[in-house]
């Protein structure tokens, strides 16, 4: 932005490393498109950014808010407060008003015909200015108020008209010149209307970087990670907020020689991928809490029959239907403990939009290598967020299943081996015929109810996971100090920011966030916590599931505090920072 120098004055006045904007509107006002456009313009100019959305329960025409944070550094958490809030209209905005934090530094632009801003905004001490966006749009043939809002935002943030118009032009290419013309006129009108408004929260210039950069959602990153890990079959049953993974995979799996089947329900989806993986094809499905509940029985089968597969659970508020469009970390218990019987399996959790790619790829690799099912616990916050990030590094984890070929003599599917992984005969291999079975079986695969075989196979399935060297990817361990913030999943980004802010205050703290949730690695965590006297556990649950999990499997120092809250309100870096600072 501002290469032309038009906004030089404001930039020097209040250059900030990060800035946040919320745009609110209902009834198809296009608030989300507006925010996405801003993100695209900013990312093209070299900033990092994160775009979350919050919505009402309607399929169309509901109230929606786009929450955008732009920064010179990688950013994957929400701000403590928004710098700029634009309300195209405020109809039912109180439903998520609590998510749009405002304060005396906040500038609120409100359409006088858009109703009253919710009390969370008006009582915050924010400065409210009125701009009649709807009326201004009416003055333009085919004009839309969100384009006025886009013009206002770009003027206040310091973008040129060209910068924000470029993505709109691309988007509207197939709608014809009239639509493009109307949008441009709207942006210009908004841009002029914002001229002269005092707004000193300006974004510092992006750091020059040669890194290739991507703009994508966590769900897209997850899907690409699966393909990179070797997945070539997916079974799909739609569920919010996981569907985008499957919708991205449908055309792209076909491009790479893979197949996607739409299942009649989650029970079918999980069993389809058991079948395809049994046939030798690395396979996955994606779901959310209610779907995971339906898949649990078959996950036990995959564990017993040693069938590799990946189930991505994009967590949402629960239990039951809960809050499908909002994030929570409350599927930890079912992912770890949901299976009946003693059923060792893999549970992994990505830590950011970009990490969705790595973790899903790694999960595929681990599942294939260890012939075990892997549950990947993503969540709505990063799954449906769009982020401008540095391109995730290429890693070499590609599904490596040990298969049995050239079989001479008797084949035993579940033969004891040094590492607990037995070569798997794929259908079509002469001499390898066996029946995969959920019944307790002997090394041959044949059913047995004998104590010896039962114990031997339980040991084998446990040991192959526990003896595996997971390397340094098992967790994020950063910083030093006698206080550790212990968190997981998408909260890792907010915690990292909080630890950074604490450091600026002179408080040394560590960030420890396991990426591998199961099998548990108690020695590794103890090493990561060496010298730590205080642990601040941070999690997005009501029932402190992560804390209880830590207590069950790991040694923690004597002083432990738990900062936890259920969805839908995300935990921010500021809140974690405060919890660190307050612990004296």
């Amino acid at each position, binding site marked *: 932005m501002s290469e032309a120098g038009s906004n030089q004055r404001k930039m020097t006045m209040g250059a900030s490393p990060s800035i946040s904007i919320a745009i609110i509107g209902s009834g198809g006002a296009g608030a989300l498109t507006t925010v996405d456009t801003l993100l*695209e313009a900013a*990312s*093209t100019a070299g900033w990092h950014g994160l775009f979350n959305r919050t919505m009402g329960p309607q399929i169309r025409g509901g109230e929606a808010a786009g929450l955008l944070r732009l920064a010179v550094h990688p950013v994957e958490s929400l701000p403590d407060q928004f710098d700029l809030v634009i309300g195209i209209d405020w109809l039912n905005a109180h439903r998520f008003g609590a998510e749009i934090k405002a304060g005396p530094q906040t500038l609120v632009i409100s359409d006088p015909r858009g109703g009253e801003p919710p009390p969370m905004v008006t009582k915050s001490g924010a400065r409210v200015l009125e701009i009649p966006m709807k009326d201004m749009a009416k003055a333009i043939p085919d004009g839309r108020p969100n384009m006025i809002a886009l013009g206002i935002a770009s003027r206040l943030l310091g973008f040129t008209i060209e910068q924000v118009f470029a993505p709109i032009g691309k988007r509207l290419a197939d709608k014809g010149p009239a639509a493009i013309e109307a949008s441009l006129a709207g942006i210009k009108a908004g841009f002029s209307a914002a001229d002269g408004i005092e707004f000193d929260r300006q974004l510092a210039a992006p750091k020059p970087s040669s890194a290739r*950069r*991507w*703009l*994508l959602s966590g769900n*897209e990153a997850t899907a*690409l990670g699966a*393909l*990179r890990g070797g997945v*070539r*079959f997916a*079974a799909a049953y739609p569920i919010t907020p996981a569907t985008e993974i499957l919708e991205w995979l449908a055309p*792209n799996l*076909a*491009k*790479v*020689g*893979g*197949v*996607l*089947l739409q*299942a*009649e*329900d989650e*029970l*079918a989806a999980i*069993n*389809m*991928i*058991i*079948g*395809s993986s*049994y*046939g*030798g094809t690395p*396979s996955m499905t994606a779901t959310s809490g209610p779907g995971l509940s339906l898949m649990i*029985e*078959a996950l*036990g*089968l995959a564990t017993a*029959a040693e069938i590799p597969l990946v189930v991505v659970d994009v967590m949402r508020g629960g239990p039951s239907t809960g809050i499908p469009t909002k994030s929570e970390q409350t599927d930890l218990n079912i992912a770890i403990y949901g299976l009946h019987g003693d059923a060792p399996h893999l549970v992994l959790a990505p830590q950011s939009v970009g990490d969705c790619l790595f973790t899903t790829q790694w999960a595929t690799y681990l599942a294939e290598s260890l012939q075990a099912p892997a549950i990947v616990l993503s969540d709505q916050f990063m799954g449906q967020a769009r982020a401008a990030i540095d*391109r995730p590094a290429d890693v070499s984890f590609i599904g490596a299943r040990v298969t049995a070929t050239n079989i001479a003599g008797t084949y035993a599917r579940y033969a004891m081996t040094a590492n607990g992984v037995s070569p798997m*005969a794929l*259908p*079509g*291999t*002469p*001499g*390898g*015929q*066996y*029946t*995969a*079975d*959920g*019944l307790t079986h002997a090394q041959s*695969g044949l*059913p047995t109810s004998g104590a010896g075989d039962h114990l031997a196979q339980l040991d084998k399935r446990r040991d192959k996971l526990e003896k595996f060297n997971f390397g340094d990817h098992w967790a994020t361990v950063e910083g030093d100090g006698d206080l550790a913030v212990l968190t997981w999943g998408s909260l890792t980004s907010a915690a990292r920011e909080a630890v950074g802010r604490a450091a600026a205050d002179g408080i040394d703290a560590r960030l420890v966030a396991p990426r591998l949730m199961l099998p548990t690695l108690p020695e590794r965590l103890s090493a990561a916590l060496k010298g730590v006297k205080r642990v601040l556990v941070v999690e997005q649950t009501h029932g402190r599931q992560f804390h209880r999990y830590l207590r069950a499997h790991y040694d923690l120092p004597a002083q432990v505090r738990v900062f936890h809250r259920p969805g839908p309100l995300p935990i921010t870096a500021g809140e974690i920072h405060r919890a660190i600072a307050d612990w004296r």
Partner: protein
Amino acid sequence: MNVETRVYKQADYKSDVKPIWCPGCGDYHVLMSFSRAFAQLGLPPEQIAVISGIGCSSRIPAYTSCYGFHGVHGRSLALAAGLKVTRPDLTVVVASGDGDGYSIGGNHFLHACRRNVDMTYVVMDNHIYGMTKGQPSPTTESEFDTALSPGGTRMRPFHPLVVALASGANFVARCFSGDPNGTADVLVEAIKHPGFSFIEILSPCVTFRPDEKAWKDQVHAAPVGATDDPGKAARRIMTDDGFNIGVLYRGDRTPYQPATGATNFDLSELEKEFEI
């Protein structure tokens, strides 16, 4: 290349695992029909996958020398679909029973018929849950008295053949286990027939339904041949005595096999949409 064609005998499809079925059970006959059919087709055992769920009939995979999967209750069709669309080179036969296939697996039955993946679905129907000691299944007569349904279920029995037709199965037949040769012949045809083939095999339960011993005197060849009109087939099946044996419907729907691209596609091409 000089490839020797191996001739397979019935015995080549039997494993040395001894069935746990009750002596007298119709499923022994079905097992025999499987090996007869496979031998007639001359399929190498390693090219066949027998997929099942839970129940007496679902024990059949391990009794064959083929690849097998004895999965969870009611989901064999889904598991088989995942296998077949990714491994179209295999011959996939799914084995089930009236509880596994029509009750807990009922929804998958409908959608497997609709999906029409090229596989053969064999349901050994004895009108009872055997593995759990004699509870009524979806095909149990409404007045049949059991511990779980004293005085009968008072529910109308399910009509699998008509449901299959209405849902789009591409081949529909009824067999009797006590006629293993006839059943083998129908199996051969069903396996060869493209798309989803459904065979309902009346297979008596000697333990919980000794009355079904009478079936061997009740079954008879269907008086008319198979039709390619599902409506006509459905009317016939709805009005017959339930003991017509033979192929009842042959359809010509194209089997479902999703199109897919080349496996050497460069994954980095997919990244382009994310690049800024």
